[in-house]
């Protein structure tokens, strides 16, 4: 194309834009990146592709740091009267957003038919963290679930069947004992298991509680928590016993962010971590590895996690319409498949898995299917009013039990008492 032609076209486009000025819609969209540097460019490519298809809409996709940073940004901006129209925030932030009164339910902006075909098409496990009070507040997008990664070479070296993951709590202990290797001085050179406990141990712990037979740690309304049940106490006792009684895990708090490195370096033979690490581990592992479901006790169980799209109050009708349209487009099979493959997040809708790209990917990376299989056993992540505070209470008490400051029963009783006091205002 010649330069003259280009500028001519640009000029026409400019005229077209001014003449249809009333139709042009600007959207601001905050997104966090929780899986390393490349995901940001994938989101930017995604919004660019949408804008190419919809020249009337201009989306400013703002990378806003981690999930916590993004929530901070969104609430600060909303309180300052400058809310974005869209943001991806943790699914568990739902009650906080409702409590702040800064988000709108999606149901009001879609037709009856779409309620069924679009919102109804997401995995129910993901919707349990996205709906309350009979409304849908979040649209699942970058969702994850924890899985178990195991080092097949280490399994073979320990005389275990390299293709069999530990399926039960007892298996995990038994395998862990075989996999824990000590040198002559008695120092461990390879740990059997790593259950990271820095930052947000309550997430993985929810999986333990679920597999011990308890459905969720809170009710659907987000006003009650169940921390001191026998199932929850049993789960924490089991967790503490891994480093204590059984000595198959390193003592103290283990860092979340260093977990993939610990696995890749052979420091731990089995690790619990998010599916979001699949891409990283696949790219860097120098050994054969397997991906399995979290081990079961009474039943299999795992939490869901990750982020949803939220629609913010304070936008014009045109903006709301455009925002809803963009999210529908972004969660459509082709786009969701691209996103899932690029990041390792679990595709949130059944129809995504029917695309040829996704099927090819699943064939190439069987581990990706494990997360999908596990969704049928999944329970919602802990989510209540005053969510971050309640979760922090539980995190602190789990940490106290892990480092031996409190017994598991005492820690959970303390967490229950404190949480009850906070939630009393919402009951």
């Amino acid at each position: 194309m010649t330069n003259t032609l280009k500028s001519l076209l640009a000029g026409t486009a400019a005229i077209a834009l001014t003449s249809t000025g009333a139709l042009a819609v600007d959207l601001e969209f905050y997104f966090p990146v929780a899986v390393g540097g490349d995901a940001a460019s994938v989101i930017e490519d995604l919004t660019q592709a949408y804008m190419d298809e919809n020249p009337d809409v201009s989306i400013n996709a703002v990378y806003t740091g981690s999930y916590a940073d993004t929530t901070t940004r969104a609430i600060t901006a909303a309180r300052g009267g400058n809310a974005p129209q869209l943001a991806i925030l943790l699914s568990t932030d739902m009650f906080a957003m409702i409590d702040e009164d800064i988000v709108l339910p999606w149901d009001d902006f879609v037709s009856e038919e779409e309620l069924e075909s679009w919102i109804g098409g997401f995995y129910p496990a993901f919707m349990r963290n996205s709906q309350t009070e009979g409304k849908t507040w979040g649209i699942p997008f970058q969702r994850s679930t924890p899985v178990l990664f195991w080092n097949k070479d280490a399994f073979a070296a320990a005389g275990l069947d390299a293709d069999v993951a530990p399926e039960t709590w007892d298996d995990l202990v038994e395998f862990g004992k075989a996999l824990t290797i000590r040198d002559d001085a008695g120092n461990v050179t390879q740990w059997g298991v790593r259950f990271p406990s820095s930052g947000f141990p309550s997430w993985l712990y929810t999986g333990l509680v679920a597999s011990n037979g308890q459905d969720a740690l809170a009710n659907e309304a987000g006003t009650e928590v169940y921390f001191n049940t026998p199932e929850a106490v049993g789960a924490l006792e089991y967790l503490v016993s891994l480093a204590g009684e059984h000595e198959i895990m390193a003592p103290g708090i283990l860092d979340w962010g260093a977990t993939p490195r610990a696995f890749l370096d052979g420091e731990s033979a089995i690790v619990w971590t998010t599916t979001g690490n699949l891409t990283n581990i696949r790219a860097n592992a120098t050994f054969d590895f397997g991906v399995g479901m979290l081990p079961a006790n009474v039943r299999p169980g795992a939490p869901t996690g990750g982020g949803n799209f939220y629609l913010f109050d304070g936008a014009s009708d045109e903006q709301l319409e455009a925002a809803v349209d963009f999210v529908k487009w972004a969660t459509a099979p082709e786009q969701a498949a691209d996103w899932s493959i690029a990041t390792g997040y679990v595709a949130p809708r059944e129809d995504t898995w029917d695309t040829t790209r996704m099927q090819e990917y699943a064939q190439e990376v069987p581990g990706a299917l494990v997360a999908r299989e596990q969704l049928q056993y999944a329970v919602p992540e802990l989510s209540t009013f005053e969510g971050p505070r309640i979760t922090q209470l539980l995190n602190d008490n789990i940490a106290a039990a892990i480092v031996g400051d409190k017994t598991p029963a005492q820690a959970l009783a303390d967490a229950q008492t404190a949480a009850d006091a906070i939630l009393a205002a919402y009951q």
Partner: protein
Amino acid sequence: MTTHVRPHSAFQPDRLLFVIGAWLLALIWILPLAYAIWTAFHPSAYETRFTLLAPLTLENFQRAWNAAPFARYFLNTILLVTMVLTAQIVLCSLAAFAFARFEFPGKNILFALVLIQLLVMPDVLLVRNYATMRTLGLVDTILAIGLPYFASGFAIFLLRQTFKTIPRELDDAARVEGCSWLGLLWRVYIPLARPTMLAFGLVSVSHHWNNFIWPLIITSSVETRPLTVGLSIFATTDSGIEWSIITAATLITSAPLLIGFLLFQRQFVQSFMRAGVK
């Protein structure tokens, strides 16, 4: 006798301890940088293994460079620290001069109010300040990152102290020669306060070079974001920490300053010394 006589220049055990101490401390201090260099130039498998024969690579730099527009972030940070420092020097010199040389009603109360800002850090007041920026229409501008720091209580305090040590006779002489107050400030006070300004400048630049939370909140585009916010993209730990990329990004952004210091450290420290900062 020459001035270069040193009583302990011979091979003495305490001199040896002195040198060993200096080197030990330096090696500890440079360890994070050494690790950053090691990790950035090797494949990620060597993040935790230190073997001499590890293969070298530039891939980490390439990935870090592609992941974010660091050149732009670097420019933004440079603009930010220059703007903040210039504004601080101008505004705070004027205010300090008024406090040091004028008598006016409410002087002590106003000075006490200035001192409060030494302690009440703008970082803590960010919800309120965000709302103010919104009212001013300054959200997502480099100006907004710097504005709350322009009037620095610390700078006013330091400059006032320095100005007070300048003999009054100098004022009178200049005034007699028909010098205006501004002229006096510019020709006499500011040159004499250069050491203080240099010391304060270092504190200011280092603070704003590293400031994180406020810029994170107030910026939302590539054109305004400073380095720290750009770097934090790699520091999110919801998934694994990739040290090789983090260190490569850190080196890219710090290299200009580090190399600058290495090349010009003699001149830098000497000019600092010649200015006689105390």
